């Protein structure tokens, strides 16, 4: 059953974290978007869907920049450094918070203090025994968990992800999605799979023709809407 709460009502209930008001967004190397208005409140789990090229990554990047201090980002790929260990890749979430000298020393010789901070995160993600393994030697699912680990270590109240499970197999997808939605208080993620979006998120934003096509609670998203979104 569809329980649509209006935008205003939702904002009244909880704190607004990110908001765009009729904004045009463009980056040199990404799809441009026109007239985007939306708002995301604390505690929401939002999925972004739409055909490739619809502008999901552009929107995520813009949302990230609205409040970088509170956002942690899980990338699709390219963000992990395969040549460095799990420990170092997770540590990279906090590079800016530490002095350059500390960063260099920790690169050459991992310091006890940071190991103690990172071990609990690795344990939570089942990576404890891989802490000093190079990321390049891990499986796709394990690598994605390292990405989540980095976002968790970075901290902040909003967890963002760009198609975090599209390169994984069925079993790993479920495992990683469950991990992401439980790890972040507020989660905004672009998604490849409609099925996963409907099961793990409460609100779905559909992007089409470079603008927002629909923005609805998950049980209001009908099959007709979806087939129109992807046509």
């Amino acid at each position, binding site marked *: 059953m569809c329980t649509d709460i209006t935008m205003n009502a939702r904002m009244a209930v909880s704190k607004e974290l990110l908001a765009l008001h009729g904004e045009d967004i463009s980056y040199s190397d990404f799809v441009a978007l026109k007239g985007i208005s939306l708002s995301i409140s604390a505690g929401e789990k939002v999925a972004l869907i739409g055909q490739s090229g619809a502008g999901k990554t552009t929107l995520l*990047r813009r949302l*990230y920049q609205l409040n*970088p201090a509170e*956002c942690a*980002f899980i*990338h699709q790929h*390219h*963000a992990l*450094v*395969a*040549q*460095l260990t799990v420990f*170092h890749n997770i540590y*990279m979430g906090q*590079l*800016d918070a530490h002095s*350059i000298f500390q*960063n*260099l020393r920790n*690169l050459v010789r991992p310091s006890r203090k940071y190991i103690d901070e990172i071990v609990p995160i690795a344990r939570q993600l089942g990576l404890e025994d891989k802490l000093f393994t190079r990321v390049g030697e891990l499986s796709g699912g394990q690598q994605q968990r390292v990405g989540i680990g980095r976002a968790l270590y970075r901290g902040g109240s909003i967890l963002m992800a760009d198609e975090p499970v599209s390169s994984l197999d069925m079993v790993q997808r479920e495992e990683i999605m469950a991990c992401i939605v439980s790890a972040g208080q507020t989660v905004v993620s672009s998604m490849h799979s409609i099925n996963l979006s409907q099961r793990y998120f409460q609100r779905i934003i559909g992007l089409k023709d470079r603008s927002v096509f629909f923005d609805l609670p998950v049980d209001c998203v009908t099959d007709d809407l979806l087939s129109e979104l992807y046509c």
Partner: protein
Amino acid sequence: MLRTSLAYFCIAVVAVFAADISISTLDPWLELKKLGLGFLTPDFFSLPEFGEALRNTVSFALIGIVLAVIFGSVLSLFFEYTAVRLFCAFIRSIHELFWAFIFMPITGLNSLCGILAIAIPYAGIFAKVYAEIRQESDQRPAEALPENTSRVSGFLYATLPVIYHDLKNYTSYRFECALRSSAILGFIGLPTLGYHLETAFREGMYNEAAALLYSFFLLILSIRFWARPKIIAIPIIAAVLVTSWDATLSLANIIRFFTYDILPWPMRAEGFYAGTQTVTLPVGEIFHWLQNITVTNILPGIWSTVLLTQIALVSTAVFTLASFAFASRRFFTPAVTGPTHLALVVLRTTPEYILAYIFLQLWGPSMLPAVFALFLHNGAILAYLTARNVNQLELPFDGSASRINRYFYEVLPRCYGQFLAFLFYRWEVIMRESAILGILGITTLGHFIDSAISRDHLDTALLLICVTAVLNMLIDSLSQRIRKRLHISAHLAAGISP
């Protein structure tokens, strides 16, 4: 990978203590000032008299490369045979200048000598690289051909089109190298740019030297306009026409060279004093001769060559790692990367031999000028390649804002393997050059070869050249083994190979 790097670094540090590194000129700054002034006020009016040297520089390189492409292509087809591979490794491990030394007694100091000195080592290089390009190319089109397709048709339809782009890029890159080789052949007396450069530098006429060097840069820059596949026939024909072919080759001379002149002196001594020129085989004396050369030339030569090579190799690495970021858009805006690129282009366009010669004038004879020349030239090439690779990296937009963090966490771990592969490729080149720079006075193998040639001891010179070649082949195979062990490779991405 880190352990290997550290080991090489320690070897180089020890080598620095063992090497002779000093500044011996009375006032290096005064000379530098004169040099700087000369390079600010190049005397372009002096150029017309060097027209012939410029023409020779281009035509030697062009004809040399054409011959090298022909022989290299043929050899590359048989590259799976060990004998062919060894032969190619041997001819390319001897530097162009040493080949010129070998041909001088046969042909004299003329065009033929210059062209052969370029054609032979480059044929060995082309054979190897063409074969590698063919092996690494996409084999599927060739496998999909009908059963009874002839080998030639198959090659023309399903292999050549696939690899043509890589072949073309690599060949044109090597043509640039051949122009450098051709220019420095002048330093040992052939009628190319180097001949006049040497005179100008020796006599301190720096504005003339600057004009020559600038015109050489322009020549290299202009390659892309006239050395194109569609019109390349025109410059080649022109080169053949303008080259003077008045070399007098006598068969008797050639036979005499191979069967008499290069034989160890003890074999010729008896006949020489008797005036009969007969050859004998006094085993004991030959052994003594060999022992003598080993102790006085080969061992000290190898020692200095290896010292210089190791110091230059590690300095090249340090220079590259310290400079590539300034040439990369991942770190700086075009306001910084532009000038850096210009500086790198100048350094890699100037042959290391010329750089060493300039530093030698400034600082006096020691290993220092050679070390600087080698790491500036090779480092500029590696920094350019590394910066280009780094530009292609996709870095996350939410990474650290600090350049130093980005350098050590995001960029260096990602590009280090490829950088090391480039560096180990360069090892053999640095070693070849280290040997050659001996001609300028430091006691590497080239020094002993040069002095043997000037005393007309062809037997000693040839023995030393062979020793240098074998040393080079050893370094080459060691480098291959290390690259394999570290699982690193530097593919011929976009045509430019280190």
